[in-house]
């Protein structure tokens, strides 16, 4: 039975808005909605170019529209997602704001689909604290009267230039069977690899296929790998505090060539080896978590193989070989 693992990835984007979208977002903080004139038409939401001709549209062609409008088309969302602007059933609608030539796609908090029709008049419900984002309008509501939810904090005093967008997606991936065998073997302090029956190359870890010959590898191809090796290359990382970063001090990631093989274990952590002492040619031995410790899976980069938590100095003299540094694959 294949095991699946879940992992969540966040996508924290910071985007610059430019002269036209920036002006639109800045106006939202003042409860005003802007379009942009292109010939006889007024495009809402505004773009820096005309989508039909590609002609550049200057920021001084922006004009105020709405804020009320008419529903031109709609669909009902009976079960909202975590990304939707409302957590109760609502409509997504094409809303033609008064004075606009194109519709704005936004949410309508209508209560039930029976309350909506083509031609329904709507007005915005504003957030009290507005940041200069399209969701400063929580949703549109039926009628001609705009609303503000909570205390009105007023417009931003400075132009809005940037926008944050943070999405988080949970992924569910199958774990290759060999990866589970590698982890299980690590509990017995063994490093499992696989030998390709075609080219005889040996691979460490849990891919389950030979990328040279494009053949799948099974349990019959498993081999035990040695526990000592030599650092061929390394990098010292100054941790940048991106979301999810747990390291605070500089740390090393090393490439280890296992003795008597062509196998390189990439991006390995080191143990009891200060950053300043890491060098090419350093002899190392596998370091294992204490029996019974619950070791997490590690990432694809820098993750150790189960109970193999890293590499420590073996005490042997360094190897002086100028070709070593080239061995990263």
């Amino acid at each position: 039975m294949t095991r699946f693992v879940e992992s969540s990835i966040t996508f924290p984007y910071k985007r610059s808005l430019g002269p036209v979208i920036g002006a639109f977002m800045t106006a939202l903080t003042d409860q005003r909605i802007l379009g942009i004139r292109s010939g006889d038409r007024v495009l809402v939401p505004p773009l820096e170019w005309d989508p039909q001709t590609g002609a550049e549209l200057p920021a001084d062609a922006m004009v105020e529209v709405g804020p009320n409008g008419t529903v031109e088309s709609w669909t009902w969302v009976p079960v909202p997602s975590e990304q939707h602007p409302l957590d109760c059933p609502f409509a997504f609608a094409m809303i033609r704001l008064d004075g606009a030539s194109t519709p704005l796609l936004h949410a309508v908090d209508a209560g039930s689909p029976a309350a909506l029709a083509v031609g329904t008049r709507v007005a915005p419900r504003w957030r009290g604290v507005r940041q200069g984002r399209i969701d400063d309008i929580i949703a549109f509501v039926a009628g001609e009267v705009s609303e503000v939810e909570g205390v009105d904090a007023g417009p931003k005093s400075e132009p809005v230039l940037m926008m944050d967008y943070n999405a988080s997606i949970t992924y569910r991936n199958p774990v290759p069977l060999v990866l589970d065998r590698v982890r299980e073997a690590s509990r017995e302090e063994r490093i499992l690899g696989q030998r390709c029956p075609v080219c005889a190359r040996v691979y460490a870890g849990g891919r389950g296929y030979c990328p040279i010959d494009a053949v799948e590898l099974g349990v019959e191809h498993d081999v035990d790998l040695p526990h000592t090796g030599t650092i061929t290359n390394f990098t010292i990382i100054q941790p940048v505090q991106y979301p999810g970063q747990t390291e605070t001090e500089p740390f090393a990631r090393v490439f280890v060539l296992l003795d008597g093989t062509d196998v390189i274990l990439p991006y390995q952590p080191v143990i009891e080896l200060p950053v300043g002492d890491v060098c090419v040619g350093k002899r190392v031995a596998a370091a294992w978590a204490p029996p019974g410790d619950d070791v997490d899976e590690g990432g694809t980069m820098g993750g150790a193989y189960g109970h193999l938590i890293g590499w420590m100095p073996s005490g042997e003299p360094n190897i002086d070989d100028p070709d070593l540094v080239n061995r990263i694959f």
Partner: protein
Amino acid sequence: MVHANGPAANGPSMSTDIAVVGWAQSPMIRRTDLSETQLLLRVITDALEPLGLTRTDIDFTCLGSCDYITGQAFSFVSNLDAIGAWPPKRDSHVEMDGAWALYEAWLRLQEGDIEIAVVTGSGRSSTGDPALIYPMEMDPFYLAPLGVDPLTFAALQARALIAAGITDERAMAEVAQRSRRDAVANPNAQVKGDFDVETLLGTDYVREPLRRHDLPPITDGAAAMVLATGDRARQLRDRPAYITGFDHRTECHNPVYRDLTDSPSTRIAAAAAHIGTGPLEVAELQAAFTHEEILLRRALELGDDVAVNRSGGALASNPIMATGLARIGYAANHIFDGGNRALAHSTSGPCLQQNLICILEGTP
């Protein structure tokens, strides 16, 4: 850019015929135990073996996949393991359906210095929730922050078509009924069987005016296709499916600026692919929603004499990133089986934003 087969006044002339000579697809299922790379390992082998080819015969590969679906940056790098990329090969990748990978391979083969290309499309849609992934790919300022999802876009386009009198909910249900009935003969169809239109119309809306039968299933799967040129194509298959027209066009990214009752990009691409130079027997359209088939038939001016989506289409199985390539594969099957002329269509983006037309024929 080359828009068409044959000598052109301002473009390169095509000295070599280019044909689809074989293809394979993985089982199309709701959730596979295999990784995307494993899917590709098997499907590439399945495409090559019946032709007597191995990976060493491949001169060029182009893979179509999507990092957002896989949930991994540069996921196409591990997919390269499936092509046996050592010694180093000529390879490319498109963050698009495999149909666009095919387009790139078709362009590359026109240089005339290589003979065989393999293209793939692959995706494990079950890895994440499509309703949460696709909003990230929409307009980042006006649409993504609202989480506007594929069902919403499809529903708004269906509503526009109904309001314009181009279709109605019954005609849409009839598309679902026919697709599911045709899919019975297709072992790779997930959704199939005999359904009564009245029964279908009696079910609840998922996203008004769309009901469950108007939507595609969620599918994991991959497809691989082998292209060959000139004499090599004729050696590999008695009746290659020659690509005699190929074009794709795109429209504005945000549907609010478009007329959703029309598909001008489909029409222009079809004209550039020479749709009108002879009668079509079959058409495979990447219509993941019932109303899209109705709109595409109209844009392509397909008559009732053209058999549309005999495979069951994307309504029967919808392996995102391979759905379009599979359409070209089914159209090629028609030529392999003795047919003369077939059209395949692929699409990308919200409300049929970008459209690709490929014409396949039994003679170059």
